[in-house]
């Protein structure tokens, strides 16, 4: 019915575009430069919800959209709705720092993240849409002897799992990234780094739009401004979702609501071991290209890349308290800046331009939860915390497979909800360097 301006993140744009007559045709003199170019082609339509779908995906972020894409592409399931309470991909998808890597320690993690990285490598072709995926490599710095041991161990584990990984000595670190402070007289000298050359960054909005366009082409309904507020239950099944745009019946329900997962699982009477935290990031003003790769540091807690446009993009850890406010405290930003200047003295004169926050869904072992639930037809994808953007295509693939076949995809199986009862955790805390 209505269409949405794909290049706007303003929900107000989700209404039909009627030109404002006063401005365009009125007698008042036209403002210079007011002539707007033709409206760009719409990437997806904005339909009203139907009465029923085979699959309802809750959450129109990267994960929900990728899940819908692979439901259609790999399983031919297209009677699907993606319900988004705000605007498309306005949650963590729009707020993350887009680091993509697969150099995790444990076999289970390496498998799913490497699967995802391989999909990233072909994603532009699959989506037929530019996503600015730039494989510029990631350095995870080691600053203490224990860091060095853990890092070398992780490199060996990565290599055994077919993940590209190298250990670099300080002089090699300097060659990859000349602006890192490798002098020996700093508080946390750089003793070396792990290096994954295939790691990179991508343009988060383009990724979401590319998926949305494909999903729309497949006949799947993307419904924005549609918050799920309850569930219609029948024993062990959920037969429908209540939304701000009416009740919708469904064959299966797939949760992809990231930081808001607990709000939904509470409505289902299902407990999940998730704590939602604010996570902040920031960008500097636009600078000439100075930073050729991605640098992460656990001990001096910050990570930095330089976006295509030229901003330095930085992030660090979560705000300590639980929060749903999509913002955090400023002292966290101050600490990140202090850490960044310690590692990159050249940044001392760069100005902070903008900070923002998202809500991340953290788990006790810093690994995601993907799979089935005690309900026959409710599927859960959450707990990606501070690091799920890189998983977008990978989890979309395995989650779609899990939904289609009513059993966990092999890459999802280790990340079941019941691992917290069996004790089979996939403990990536610290193991995988900073968790982004």
């Amino acid at each position, binding site marked *: 019915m209505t269409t949405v301006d794909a290049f706007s993140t303003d929900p107000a744009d989700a209404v039909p575009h009627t030109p404002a007559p006063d401005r365009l045709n009125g007698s008042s003199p036209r403002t210079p430069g007011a002539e707007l170019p033709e409206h760009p082609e719409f990437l997806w339509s904005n339909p009203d919800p139907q009465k029923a779908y085979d699959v309802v995906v809750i959450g129109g972020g990267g994960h929900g959209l990728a899940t819908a894409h692979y439901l259609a592409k790999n399983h031919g399931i297209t009677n699907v709705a993606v319900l988004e*309470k705000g605007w498309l991909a306005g949650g963590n998808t729009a707020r993350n720092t887009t680091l993509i890597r697969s150099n995790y320690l444990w076999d289970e993690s390496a498998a799913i993240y490497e699967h995802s990285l391989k999909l990233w490598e072909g994603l532009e072709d699959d989506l037929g849409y530019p996503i600015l995926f730039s494989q510029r490599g990631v350095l995870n710095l080691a600053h203490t002897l224990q860091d060095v041991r853990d890092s070398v161990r992780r490199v060996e584990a990565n290599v055994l799992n077919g993940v590209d990984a190298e250990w670099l000595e300080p002089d090699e670190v300097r060659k990859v990234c000349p602006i890192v402070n490798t002098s020996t007289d700093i508080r946390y000298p750089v003793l070396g780094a792990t290096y994954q050359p295939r790691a990179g960054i991508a343009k988060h909005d383009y990724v979401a739009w590319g998926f949305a366009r494909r999903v729309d082409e497949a006949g799947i309904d993307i419904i924005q401004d549609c*918050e799920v507020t309850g569930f219609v239950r029948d024993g062990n099944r959920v037969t429908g979702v209540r939304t701000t745009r009416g009740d919708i019946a469904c064959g299966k329900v797939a949760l992809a609501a990231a930081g*808001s997962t*607990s*709000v939904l699982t509470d409505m289902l009477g299902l*407990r*999940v*071991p*998730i*704590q*939602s935290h604010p996570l902040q990031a920031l960008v500097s003003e636009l600078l000439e290209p100075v930073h050729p790769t991605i640098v992460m540091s656990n001990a001096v807690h910050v990570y930095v890349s330089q976006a295509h446009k030229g901003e330095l993009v930085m992030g660090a850890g979560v705000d*300590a*308290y*639980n*929060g*749903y*406010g*999509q913002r955090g*405290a*400023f*002292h966290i930003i101050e600490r990140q800046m202090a850490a960044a200047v310690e590692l990159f003295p050249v940044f001392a004169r760069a100005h902070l331009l903008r900070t923002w926050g998202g809500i991340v869904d953290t788990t*006790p072992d810093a690994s995601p939860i993907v799979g089935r639930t005690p309900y026959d037809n409710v599927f859960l994808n959450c707990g990606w915390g501070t690091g799920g953007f890189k998983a977008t295509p990978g989890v979309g693939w395995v989650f779609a497979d899990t939904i289609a076949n009513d059993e966990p995809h092999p890459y999802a199986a280790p990340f079941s909800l019941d691992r*917290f*009862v*069996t*004790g089979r955790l996939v403990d990536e805390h610290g193991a995988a360097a900073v968790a982004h």
Partner: protein
Amino acid sequence: MQMIRCPWCGPREEVEFHYGGQAHVPYPAEPAALSDEEWAHYVFFRDNTRGAFAERWSHSAGCRRWFNALRDTVSYRFLAVYRPGDPRPVLDQTPTAGASS
């Protein structure tokens, strides 16, 4: 910076405090009697309330004492602070809980 009122020291800057997660989670009365599932819930599962949340804080850079607070997890505003052992205070008005953001 947000000021947090320590029940013993009064208002101090947020950086003096350490967060302790959900309050009022009792240690199991009979640990040996718990099933694996019950242990899992004691060890790993905590409420993740959107709205007024009862939680533990420690004034770690001050008197180093623990206390409890009711805080709105959407606005981050402290609604009440109270001493350990005191019951969760009852608020007259509901805060922003449920408000969409």
